[in-house]
């Protein structure tokens, strides 16, 4: 950039000031959540709250894990998130492959268009009919209801993400495999998927975070503690333990943990995927 050194230093200082401000804005609630979770209750109920903790404690975590249904909710979230992401990936791999390689066929084009439109249709519009559909099918308060719903809503994003990865794999590789007598499934599983492993991981992670964080359908389609997932479960805790903020924040920390770990490992890929604009907030 063509700038005088003095003004360059000024902009650098300004840039850091802005970035530090934003970093604080983003992290303080996060840190306060952790801070509250390991503070003993008397220190939480202070009229002069600080980040300093005189007697750190794990009592809130113990209470959440041993005295509440937290572990059941956690397990349910895990089952639903894994089930729906696996189903999504299987459907998405085949649909994305067809869209990447055979995009001119009418059936492929029709489904591609349908996915594009359905990506724009928000879940809340379908909340009532889906509730009634699950009611008619006898699937309310089942894992299946959530797995089917999450799969449907994550499918378009995952198909488009995967398609963009498949598009980068040269056709010549597939032609060579086909000449060697490889079947179509063989081509997909031995050539395409191994080459798009980063793409598969990115797509799966997006789907997993989406399923793990989803609230509305989990809240509406499940009415028993035995099948309740974590996000509606935490809201339930809020009603039950209204002023026990230490335990509520401990539950919040534990609920964020899986996505936070995934994010730390994969943030480069995830930010790239985010930038491609394919993922809902």
């Amino acid at each position, binding site marked *: 950039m063509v700038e005088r050194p003095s003004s360059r230093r000024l*902009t650098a200082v300004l840039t850091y000031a802005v970035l530090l401000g934003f970093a604080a804005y983003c992290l303080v609630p996060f840190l306060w959540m952790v801070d509250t979770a390991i503070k003993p209750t008397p220190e939480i109920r202070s009229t002069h709250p600080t980040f300093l903790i005189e007697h750190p404690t794990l009592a809130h975590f113990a209470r959440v894990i041993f005295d509440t249904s937290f572990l059941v909710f956690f397990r349910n979230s895990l089952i639903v998130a894994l089930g729906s992401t696996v189903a999504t990936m299987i459907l998405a791999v085949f649909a994305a492959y067809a869209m990447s390689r055979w995009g001119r066929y009418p059936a492929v084009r029709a489904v591609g268009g349908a996915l594009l439109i359905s990506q724009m249709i928000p879940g809340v519009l379908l909340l*009532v009919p889906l509730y009634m559909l699950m009611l008619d099918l006898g699937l309310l308060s089942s894992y299946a209801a959530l797995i089917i719903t999450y799969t449907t809503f994550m499918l378009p994003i995952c198909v488009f993400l995967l398609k963009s990865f498949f598009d980068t794999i040269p056709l010549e590789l597939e032609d060579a495999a086909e000449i060697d007598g490889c079947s179509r499934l063989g081509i997909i599983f031995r050539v395409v998927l191994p080459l798009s492993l980063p793409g598969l991981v990115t797509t799966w992670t997006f789907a997993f975070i989406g399923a*793990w964080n989803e609230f509305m359908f989990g809240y509406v389609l499940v009415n028993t503690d035995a099948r309740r997932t974590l996000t509606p479960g935490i809201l339930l805790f809020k009603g039950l333990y209204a002023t026990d903020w230490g335990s509520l924040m401990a539950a919040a920390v534990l609920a964020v943990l899986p996505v936070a770990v995934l994010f730390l490992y994969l943030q480069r890929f995830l930010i790239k995927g985010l930038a491609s604009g394919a993922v809902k907030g």
Partner: protein
Amino acid sequence: MRLERPARIRRNSLLFVAPAGALVLLLVALPLLRVIWDSFHFVNLVNPEQAGWAGLENYRTVLDDEEFAPAVVRTVWWTALSVVGEYLLGLVSALALARKVRGRAVFRAILTVPWIVPIVVAGLTWTWMLTPDYGVVNAWLQASGIARHPHHWLGQTETALLAVTFVNVWRSFPFYTISLLAGLQTVPRELYEAAAIDGAGALGRFWHITLPHLRGISLTLVVMHCIWTAINFDFIWVMTEGGPLNASQTLPVLVYRYALQQFDVGAASVVAVFMMLFMAGLVALRLALGRPARAEA
């Protein structure tokens, strides 16, 4: 039977997309039609006796409901304030991240953190920070002399929706940051250099080079987020359940109220149809303003 290669590919293409197509048909297309259908019928969740053609009766129920018009106004405010706030924060942070400073990768990761937090957790954490007793926000406001008394941000009709909007902006702006940052990186550096040689100041360069380059991606971002914000149920339900005294009740909350608290599926479907029309309007507006950014990417 051994098919010829073109026929085999045609059959495979059908098999490959059929499951995805079926899922979208059964769980998106048909339910969508059912919403429209239900809006013209009497449908009750607990009383199956209430059934049959309703004509415009459900529409009258909703339009006569004194909660409907305020909910529309609130939805517009909630959406407009959220999107403006998110866009401004997203733009400023993206401009800062686009400078080649040391540690920008770390800052970029930190600035994405709010986006991965589940809405329920974000809502709960901010609810705790905003409580009048022991809440850290009130404590800081008092310590810095901005406020004299603790304020019950979520519990008072004047501030409840604003407080939820603030939290929504916190969680959603990183999406703008990342998208706008990607947009900024496509601006050719030569343009800035040429403009600087021609004597354009920093503001002039921003106004005449940066902003026009971000036009396409900004339009897409704003339109998509208008839709996603207007239809968002989670934030408001988690933090206030539409209260106090319905002061933060928006249209999605109204859908939930009609369907799952009053069991009036017909009325809930009417609100959903209104929301659908609003969305279709926005998408049409976006298309009228130019081709979508996805095609440019």
